[in-house]
């Protein structure tokens, strides 16, 4: 039982990270019907900016809460700027074209960021400095939860509550929801859709960057291609929860994280080698799209001609 709880805690920890990234995917899809392939790479950028900030501002040498906070906020701001720039220079000009064009552009941007990262930072993984004095708190039996995991849960929940407040209790949030409902009607209502789109990208990117810094505390290795697989899994999480649906993204993320860890953890006994870890998310994706394409919390709307 305690192993199960431990696995669950570990799974939910990764799941929370997936949820943070999935929120970005789901928000952008909600307003633009565009899968932002480059989102996973924003997560990577967040981690790297955090890395350089932590070293540059001396937080690496002296772990502290303040250092963590500053790094977190700094990387979120930097990623928001990058996200806004991507939208402005790469996605906006192709918005008027057919869907496949925007899709290909998104893939191009994603690969550009990844490979620029490889060229600039080199492919060798770096160790992200721990910004907390880690500690483990035993729960029962062999199960324990670490300070880092508590940090991840805490910060993520705080950010998600903040997002919830923004989306449902502010004017900007109402505008976002309006744009995701029907972009043209929102324009007719006087909403500056371009600004809202930029804001959404900024929000999503900030969340992904927070995910990046938090992951780097949990799993200290960072490398330029770290956004690919994590980004894809977060996308699967968004689809699982119902793409376009914000609580769905959170639910999807947690489920994927838990499923992945549990399958790998218990799969050893059933003969599934741990190298199949990444396949779990894709298998879930295929199952979801086959049996419930609108996702767990999504609703179906009939296609009209």
């Amino acid at each position, binding site marked *: 039982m305690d192993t199960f709880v431990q696995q669950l805690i570990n799974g939910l920890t990764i799941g929370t990270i997936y949820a943070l990234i999935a929120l970005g995917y789901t928000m952008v899809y909600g307003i633009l*019907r*565009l*899968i932002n392939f480059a989102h996973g790479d924003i997560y990577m950028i967040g981690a790297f900016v955090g890395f350089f900030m932590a070293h540059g501002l001396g937080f690496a040498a002296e772990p502290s809460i303040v250092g963590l906070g500053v790094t977190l906020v700094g990387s979120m701001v930097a990623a928001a700027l990058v996200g806004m720039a991507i939208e402005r220079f*790469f996605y906006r*000009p*192709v*918005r*008027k*074209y*057919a*869907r*496949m*064009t925007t*899709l*290909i*552009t998104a*893939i*191009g*941007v*994603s*690969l*550009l960021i990844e*490979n*620029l990262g490889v*060229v600039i930072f080199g492919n060798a993984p770096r160790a992200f400095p721990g910004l907390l004095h880690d500690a483990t708190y035993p729960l029962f039996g062999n199960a324990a939860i670490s300070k880092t995991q508590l940090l991840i849960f805490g910060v993520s929940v705080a950010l998600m509550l903040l997002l919830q407040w923004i989306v449902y209790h502010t004017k900007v949030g109402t505008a976002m929801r309006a744009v995701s409902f*029907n*972009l*043209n009607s929102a*324009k007719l209502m006087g909403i500056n859709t371009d600004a809202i789109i930029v804001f959404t990208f900024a929000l999503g990117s900030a969340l992904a960057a927070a995910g990046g810094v938090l992951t780097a505390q949990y799993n200290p290795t960072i490398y330029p291609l770290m956004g*690919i697989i994590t980004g*894809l899994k977060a*996308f*699967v999480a968004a*689809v699982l929860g*119902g*793409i*376009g*649906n914000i609580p769905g993204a959170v639910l999807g993320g947690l489920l994927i994280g838990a499923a992945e860890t549990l399958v790998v953890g218990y799969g050893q006994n059933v003969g599934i*080698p741990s*190298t*199949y870890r*990444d*396949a779990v998310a*894709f*298998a879930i*994706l*295929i199952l979801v*799209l*086959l049996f419930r*394409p*609108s*996702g767990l919390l*999504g*609703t*179906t*709307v*009939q*296609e*009209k*001609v």
Partner: protein
Amino acid sequence: MPGFAKRIVGAVVVVLAIIVVNAMLSAEGLFGFGVPRYWAHVLMLAGINVILAVSLNLINGFTGQFSIGHAGFMAIGAYASAYLTVYHGQAWERSLSGAVGETLAGVVVFLLAILVGAVVAGLAGLVVGVPSLRLRGDYLAIVTLGFAEIIRIVILNMEVVGGATGFTVPGETNFLWVGAFAVITILVVHNIVRSDTGRALISIREDELAAEAMGINSTRYKVLSFVVGSMFAGIAGALFGHYTRFLSTADFTFIRSFEIIIMIVLGGMGSITGSVLGAVVITVLPELLRLLPSVGGFNFADLRLVIYSALLILIMLTRPQGVLGEREFGFNWLRRAQKRPEGDEAVGAGAGVPIAGRPAPTGGGESGEDAVKGVENR
């Protein structure tokens, strides 16, 4: 010259060209005119890439589906054919050479291996295609990517084909095989596109709902193009495996799929000559980059993938229909300006350029913005 005779002459010319090139690529060369080994290598890869690009163009360009998992089918073809040649090839060759002589036995066995690779890849295309082709663009892309990754991971875990350490394969491919199959691929795809089936595929690309309203079973045709495309990818994989003589799943990652995509995007999705052009350019590009002098110890060849992605974005921003759009570059072009029957503007709706007078497909309305046919997410 009557059309029939033209075709015979054309066929003879092509066959002779392939034989000549193959002879020139061999060590002695043809009458002393050889080709440096390095460029011979590039030529072989270009031929294989042509098969990949043309087959992917059938799915992406002519049917308008967005498959980014082509490398998975290539992998299946490679490993399936390799499994045969490694474990059964010699035994079969020996038993056959008694009957038909040694070279012919070798040819037959290799041909069989390639065909098996094609069939298995086609079956995989069927398995991937049937459930996925109900999905609209964005989702289909992710699902094909997912399937390609699953295929890769499964192959990686199969010890019988080498697993993580790789798989050594006898070297059977020479330019005769590659050239022949490249020509066959082009011919088959060209014939499909010019036929009723091709018209159905193009109509699905242009407007799937309207095609269905006209009585075209869009799922059936989409699956068809998917299976044919993946079969040829399997052939390319088989040829590739038996050329490099060493198979490792690292050759079949998303990067490979992406390279094929940029070939067809560059050449023009919807143009066979375009994909040939794109394949050749993208194959030659890294070699040209290697020839550039290093600037202060910084090798341009390392920038290969950065250049590809930047190129892709640039094409999408400036000329989304690619170099040739949907036009073909043929002998007609040399006699008169290429004109499509409907007018002389390249019809670019499939590739994203708004046609003059017809507004670009709107991005904000409800209609047509659904994830899956009949389903939308809130």
